[in-house]
């Protein structure tokens, strides 16, 4: 794959990381990564409830080789830990998802959510301030009116850029279960939030009400065998959305059909392959992420071992299936025991929908070119990535003779997992979250 042969790695860390590279603060673990619609801003959320926004440097004519690095733009505390008194359980402040709203004016808006509450944040810049008030002096102290002899008109003078984030809306108390997804509708007036059993539709302006559009909670909770794992609005059709389940199915719903979209318009499920059946077939079929393509024609799903691309017009099987780390198939029992089998990997499209990317273990992440059918495994690690170094493709050897530079399955570090990645909407820039480190790689084209 020509365009991914060379990469320019950068390394970013949240400010409060512990210095040692072997251990890290739990709160610094990155839990979500998302570019905004232009790609100028990159937001990350972490387990400590913080949001860090990076902004791309303007390209300068003087230094054309420094093609727009990302620097920290704003940091704020989005969610705080809470306590549910009824159940005597803590509510984590971990940011599960961030979604940007399209930008209409100078300020940017994003939605961030933890398990229970969604918040709309406004991020705005301030680079001018008024000077020359009559009734107060520059420090803000009130002037004695009797001392004022002349009147002046305050003027705006430039100041150091200040970026401030303010919570504009708080959408709370609508979810009994843990929110796993939020998705902004293409009408930009509504958005949905999905938890394990229900999906709610919100209007941005209204925080004390939401519409319930999907409810799969059974009357008898003991009959519960399936939960919602992810949901997303269609990028162009504001009435269409999909949601995935823990049984490996995708349902496409049309909100025009009824107020409560319990009956799907389309149902996507691949029949089970009998030769691959095991005790863990159901668990590994559970879909951890679902993403529409930018075109809106396809939807991509990630389950434990594969990434699948579905054509919206074909419900009985996916169009393409890509093996992410099939060598783990023989290790499923151990992965079940250490809970790794429940890891929720995300997947992303590139801007042109020709390449898909997803993470794996040992800080590996994989890219699949849908046109050439070629794939590559890359590693996000400090040791292997010096600035301006080229990322070397990695290979996992399954058995037999291990070649040099290959890594054997048993040497994989399952604590280093890449769950969250993001792709710039138009350029070949990717953001990869490896535990508490954020790597940004660019395609180096000179």
């Amino acid at each position: 794959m020509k365009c991914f042969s060379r990469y320019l790695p950068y390394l970013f860390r949240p400010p409060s990381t512990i210095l040692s590279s072997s251990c890290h603060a739990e709160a610094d673990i990155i839990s979500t990564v998302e570019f905004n619609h232009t790609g100028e801003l990159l937001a990350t959320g972490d387990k400590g409830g913080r949001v860090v926004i990076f902004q791309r440097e303007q390209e300068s004519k003087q230094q054309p080789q420094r093609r727009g690095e990302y620097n920290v733009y704003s940091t704020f505390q989005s969610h705080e830990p809470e306590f549910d008194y009824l159940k005597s359980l803590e509510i984590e402040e971990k940011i599960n998802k961030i979604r940007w709203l399209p930008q209409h004016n100078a300020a940017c808006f994003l939605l961030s959510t933890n398990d229970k509450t969604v918040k709309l944040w406004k991020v705005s810049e301030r680079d001018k301030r008024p000077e020359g008030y009559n009734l107060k002096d520059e420090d803000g102290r009130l002037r004695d009116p009797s001392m004022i002899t002349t009147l002046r008109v305050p003027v705006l003078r430039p100041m150091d850029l200040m970026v401030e984030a303010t919570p504009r809306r708080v959408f709370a108390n609508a979810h009994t279960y843990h929110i796993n997804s939020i998705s902004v509708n293409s009408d930009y007036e509504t958005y949905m939030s999905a938890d394990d059993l229900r999906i709610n539709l919100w209007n941005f302006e209204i925080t004390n009400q939401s519409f319930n559009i999907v409810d799969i909670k059974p009357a008898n909770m003991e009959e519960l065998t399936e939960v919602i794992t992810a949901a997303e609005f269609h990028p162009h059709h504001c009435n269409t959305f999909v949601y995935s389940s823990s049984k490996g199915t995708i349902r496409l719903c049309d909100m025009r059909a009824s107020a409560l979209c319990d009956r799907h318009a389309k149902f996507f499920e691949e029949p089970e392959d009998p030769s691959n059946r095991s005790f863990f077939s159901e668990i590994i079929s559970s879909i951890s992420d679902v993403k529409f393509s930018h075109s809106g024609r396809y939807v991509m799903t990630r389950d434990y071992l594969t990434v699948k691309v579905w054509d919206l017009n074909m419900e009985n099987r996916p169009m393409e299936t890509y093996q992410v780390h099939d060598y783990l198939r023989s290790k499923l029992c151990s992965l079940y025991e250490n809970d790794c089998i429940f890891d929720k990997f995300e997947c992303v499209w590139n801007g042109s929908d020709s390449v898909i990317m997803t993470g794996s273990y040992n800080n590996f992440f994989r890219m699949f070119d849908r046109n050439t059918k070629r794939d590559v495994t890359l590693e996000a690690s400090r040791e292997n990535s010096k600035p301006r170094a080229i990322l070397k493709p990695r290979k996992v050897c399954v058995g037999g003779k291990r070649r040099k530079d290959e890594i054997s399955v048993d040497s994989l570090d399952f604590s280093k997992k890449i769950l969250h990645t993001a792709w710039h909407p138009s350029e070949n820039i990717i953001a990869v979250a490896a535990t508490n480190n954020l790597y940004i790689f660019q395609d180096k084209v000179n």
Partner: protein
Amino acid sequence: MLKWCSEPCARYMLGKGGKRKFDEHEDGLEGKVVSPTDGPSKVSYTLQRQTIFNISLMKLYNHRPLTEPSLQKTVLINNMLRRIQEELKQEGSLRPVFVTASQPADPLGDSFREAQPAFSHLAAQPLLPADLVSAAPLEACLTPASLLEDDAFCTSQTVQHDGPTKLPPPALQPVKDSFSSALDEIEELCPAPTSAEAVAVAAETAADDSKDHPSESSVQRPEGVPESRTAEPKLMDPLPGNFEITTSTGFLTDLTLDDILFADIDTSMYDFDPCTSATGAASKMAPVSADELLKTLAPYSSQPVTPNQPFKMDLTELDHIMEVLVGS
């Protein structure tokens, strides 16, 4: 748990030699594509299934989070446990069972055999204590007999299912042979039937007739959704605030007491010795474990642990019958 898993492994993995560690044992199992119908690998299939079953139970019971556990994870683990349970039930329903209420000796064996699928993980050990628990009076014992009823009902249901996910149940003959001889000896020692066994036998008959057993807890699902028996004995609520009702107890109740009682027991005590040391050891451990078990599970229970009474009565029955058996 690590300790006792390695013993059956050493027993069945002929030719491997030496004691194997848990990890090796696991990888050895997973590496195979085991089909339940093969001869020798069928045993490893059973072992693998048991390993997974135990892991699943531990996940549900040992998890004490400060935050709410993930519902998705819980549902997936529950589904796994239910599937294994149904497989075991199917295997149990297909084995030859002597269903005669008139013969005093056989009902004991029947309930023993009926309990067999639930305890297949204790493959190497004679399940006398389990047997004796089910021998307790019906009204006093919430767990075994009523759930044997559910067993029968559910078995008949699952047999009707199309169940593409169900693997053909193996004939566990080689495993059972070791029990048959133990069984005969038990039957010789303990001839008197109890009401529980009679009910169990009736349950067997019901299973054969595929009668619609009116049970408040079982829900008829014509679509073929796997049975989930509600917990009429809501003994344990391992998922505080999660499923809102005691979900996982539904499938656990028929296995619960004995399964968990002996889950942690070192298998070295269960070396197959017909009727003597194993039973003595097990019976001594049983009363202690049950109490401890109830204590540990009490915090999880959203309802008062009322079955304490029946359990205590079970244990006195247990002691009594053990005395009879051991002849002391």
